[in-house]
């Protein structure tokens, strides 16, 4: 193991395995962004681990030339938690889709976030089950017609950003698969964060839910419907920044800057300890048909779980002294025969 990471190229992070996502899948651009980011992070391949659950997104580890584990459906955050505790020296990424993370693995996701384990979670949200061939997912809109919901789905979807903010996540961000640079920026920010980070990636499933995010991610729609959050800046969007977001009566709403005046526009503060404003922003949009924020919603400092567990081990060692097995066996009193 070396202290100074060797310089790498994106190609060094690719494996010899044939990538088997459907042609045109949004996962390809996320994979490219990740491979391009890695050399910039100046980290070692052998100290990087990708852990995944099950689903199309969960094949990701096979394509990264690092250590990796393709686990079981929904359990990746739990597997990664054990790994992070045993090995606080590693960079651990968790990859999963909306079915993996929001449905079968919902429990593990929220607990990993509240504990603030040092893992970086990428949630590939395509609002559909892909690998099982097209059933509605926990992020699908109500009324989604699929093979398992021929008359339309009845389930109210999760709003992933609202959910993870409610789960005490210390780093929350969102990006989309049509903007490589923004993805790289968000992944980098997640990597720099000490603790659990979650990045939702709007990702297109061109086979079972093609164009689901087009209303906001397609180039011609971005001006009208994509709000890029930047720390310390007023939340504005539109071709000429003519729109903005203001908070009124406990909710965020889209306004015309000309109507309300610049001073009324919300200035984004990702470090705010109280998650209420971030939550309001997460509720701004009801779906990919109206102005939707991307960027870092929240980035706060909070005690990291795995290193805290290491601290407790060290404290116990200082308090109670050496780990003598023979002493332990005698710790509850002995007698001689």
């Amino acid at each position, binding site marked *: *193991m070396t202290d100074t990471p060797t310089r790498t190229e994106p190609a060094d992070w690719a494996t010899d395995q044939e990538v088997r996502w459907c042609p045109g899948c949004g996962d390809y651009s996320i994979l490219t962004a990740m491979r391009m980011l890695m050399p910039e992070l100046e980290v070692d391949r052998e100290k990087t681990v990708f852990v995944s659950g099950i689903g199309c997104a969960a094949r990701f580890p096979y394509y990264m030339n690092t250590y990796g584990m393709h686990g079981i459906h929904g359990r990746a955050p739990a*597997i990664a938690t054990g790994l992070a*505790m045993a090995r606080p020296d*590693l960079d651990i990424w968790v990859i999963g889709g909306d079915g993996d993370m929001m449905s079968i693995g919902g429990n593990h996701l929220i*607990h990993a976030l509240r504990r603030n384990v040092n893992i970086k979670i990428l949630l590939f949200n395509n609002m559909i089950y892909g690998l099982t061939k097209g059933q509605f997912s926990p992020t699908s809109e109500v009324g989604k017609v699929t093979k398992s919901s021929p008359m339309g789905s009845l389930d109210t979807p999760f709003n992933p950003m609202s959910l993870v903010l409610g789960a005490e996540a210390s780093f929350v961000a969102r990006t989309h698969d049509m903007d490589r640079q923004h993805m790289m920026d968000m992944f980098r920010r997640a990597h720099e964060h000490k603790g659990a980070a979650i990045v939702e990636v709007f990702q297109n499933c061109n086979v079972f839910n093609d164009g689901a995010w087009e209303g906001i991610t397609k180039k011609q729609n971005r001006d009208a419907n994509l709000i890029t959050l930047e720390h310390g800046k007023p939340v504005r969007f539109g071709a000429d920044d003519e729109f903005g977001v203001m908070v009124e009566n406990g909710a965020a709403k889209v306004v015309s800057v000309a109507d309300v005046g610049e001073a009324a526009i919300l200035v984004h503060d990702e470090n705010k300890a109280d998650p209420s404003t971030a939550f309001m922003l997460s509720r701004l949009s009801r779906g990919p048909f109206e102005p939707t924020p991307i960027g870092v919603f929240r980035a706060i400092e909070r005690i990291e779980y795995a290193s805290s567990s290491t601290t407790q081990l060290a404290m116990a060692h200082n308090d109670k002294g050496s780990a003598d097995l*023979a002493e332990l066996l005698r710790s509850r009193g002995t007698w001689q025969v």
Partner: protein
Amino acid sequence: MTDTAPRELPLQELDEVIIRFAGDSGDGMQLTGDQFTSISAALGNDLATLPEFPAEIRAPQGTLAGVSAFQVRISDFAITTPGDAPTVLVAMNPAALKAQLHNVVQGGAIIVNTDAFNERNLEKAGYDSNPLEDGSLDGYRSYPVPMSQITRDAVAEHGVKPRDAERSKNFFALGLISWMYTRPIEPTMEFISTKFRGKELVIKANEAAFYAGYNFGETAELFESHYEIKPAELPSGEYTNINGNTAISWGCIAAGQLAQLPIFLGSYPITPASDILHDLSALKHFGARTFQAEDEIAAAASAIGAAFGGALAFTTTSGPGIALKGEGLGLAVSLELPLVIIDIQRGGPSTGLPTKPEQADLMMAMYGRHSESPMPIVAPRSPADCFNATIEACRIALRYRTPVMLLSDGYLATSSEPWLLPDVEDLPDIGVEFHTGYNGTNEDGEGIFLPYLRDPETLARPWAIPGTPDLMHRIGGIEKEDGSGNISYDPENHQKMVDLRAAKIEAVDVPDAEISGDSDADFCMLGWGSTWGAIDAALARLQKAGKKVAHIHLTHLNPLPKNLGELLSSFDKVICPEMNAGQLVNLIRAKYLIDVKPVNKMNGVPFTTAEIESAALEAMDAS
């Protein structure tokens, strides 16, 4: 009480006594029993204990459901069970008497707290008339003692509030029994001052209650003698009193040191396994990293993650938790990583009897996963043996890179026995090397790492942990190509991998089974796990009665010892007592076509020696 001077009572020597302390869950019976056990251990008696408590934290006071009991057997000879039936019952209230009386041997001593036998308590216990007066205790030696009143009187002078005064009555009972069995006073005084440090009033009250009980025995003209039980002839050395769950916790710590690996426990609280989580959480100075997960699934998954990272990983649970962990255990089989799953079996199915033992998870340990996912199984036979069995499970897990199931049960978990401490230097070295270099070459002759290239001897795959330069690799639950570990859906490869996984477990080195008793007998008792004590004691009784009997006890349930089929076929008759409906019997019949006769018991109470003895006699007589 009389005001006469201490009487000179005859001291009668006994070879053993089985005392059961029974009272309300809040009466402190476990503490009383524990302390009596400690004093007796220090005196050199052999002993075995059997705590019994309700699943509820505080069941309604005075009811049968709320009875908590602690049985301890002390002897001047080597014993392997806490005894079939108590010879002495200490009953703190009517419910305790009602719940326990039927267990007591005819002619046994019944010491009751008469103050608790009021109308209300009698009614709560379901008595129509007072058993102390209606002849219910005919055939027993009954000793009515107004424990509450004397305790109240004794502690009053220390300024204890009347409401709290009675709480010391368990120490009165302990004092009385300590007098009866000539136990020294000092260790209990020390115990009281340590246990209740900082609570001066409680210390004074408990001391006063203890002395009141002790003196009551001596002065009240109620007892005809007191008793002595000489030290047992045990192998010489240093002993501690240990229960099964602590032995497992210490086994985990020992295994980590022997393997020179950090240990990790992923666990979700569940009765009766939680104490292992508690114990290890308090041993952080030994580097024990514990993780209380959000559920059983995450507990197993986190342990798998830790194992991937190079820790010696454990997950602990009881039956329902094993069901939840099943998916993760399938992954562990496929990943071929070392992992020890500890199942403290309890009555089931479902919530079943959380505080009562059963051995009915054997089939689940063996087959309770999807597809073909073989897993070694190790089962300790006594509380102290839990230590060795844990190390053995770790040895197999590490050497063969496989999940291993350790099957203990609620009986072993909570009962205790003296343990001759091993010399730490003599414990086995179970360490394995991480893989650090290439183990193959590609077409261009360059070094590569093949994560599923097996050791030809053990069929174990290399364990290369993250952080190791050049050996980056991906593993997962999808079928892997033999050698490279790359995803493979090739039919022949899958057949090969299924066969390899099975062959690896089948070839785990397991010591030969041994016969105790008469190796030339025609009749054999086959057992596994916690039934050992009762079967061993039954063996002794049968031999004493002139019968020729053999006993084979299995620690390894998968794979079975290589000589087992041959051994078993040398007997005309084999019976198998187990706390399930015949699970080992089915395995043995299926594997060896030997018609082992089941002897089954599933009432939440371990086999008694007498039950096994009579089952054996019956089987011997049957044609």
